[in-house]
């Protein structure tokens, strides 16, 4: 670990907070993408079944 001198708190804080924000952003986007992808495949399957039943 490099010697961060007197202001180690500021440097560490800015890195930790920034990476935390980026991480939550990535996780939120990733989880929503998965959830919506699953939901879409279900809806499409239901639509195909409905179309076959009254086709």
């Amino acid at each position, binding site marked *: 670990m490099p010697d961060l001198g007197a202001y180690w708190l500021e440097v560490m804080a800015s890195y930790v907070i920034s990476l935390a924000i980026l991480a939550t952003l990535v996780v939120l986007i990733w989880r929503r993408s998965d959830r919506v992808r699953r939901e879409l495949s279900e809806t*499409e399957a239901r*639509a*195909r079944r409905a*179309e076959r039943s009254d086709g």
Partner: protein
Amino acid sequence: MDLSVRDLAVARGGIPVLEGVRFDLPAGGALVLRGPNGCGKTTLLRTLAGLQPPLEGRISAPPEAMAYAGHADGLKPTLTVAENLRFWASVYGTAGREAPAMSAMNLSDLLDRPAQTLSAGQKRRLGLARLLVTGRPLWVLDEPTVSLDAGSVGLFVRIVRAHLEAGGAALMATHIDLGLAEARVLDLTAYRARPRAQAGGFDEAFA
């Protein structure tokens, strides 16, 4: 002065509701739109009135010819009957037509009553009096006779007939039979929009 519509398609909330609508409304003619609730009567009227862009198709009508009346009458409760009509007269630049309009819809005795004290039927009559005040030949009316008693409906039909004889035209969406013999009827269920793409592909409208 006639309105002609060629294969018009309209959408509500991005979903096509009607397509291929075509009709002509010559001067002196009246057309009543029939169809179950939610089939797109209001959407069609709003598109004709210019409040909404059509999906496709053509509407050709002379400029400044249409007067639209929706479900709500657009009356200011704190203004009196006379003030409401005078306002619309000055907006349409037809000063002086308030008196004949009020007498036609026999509202003359309610002259100074604020609109909020009127009954639903009287408010409706004031809304229709506004149509007379606009002096526009082509009336586009959405459920004009709602909350009108039998006598007022008769009065309304006489007003429309006089309007037609004077060379005007009327396009109305309504459920009840107005007893307007010369009015043609157009059933909108024939123009219901078929769902476009199948479940597989999706075009600009995602469906």
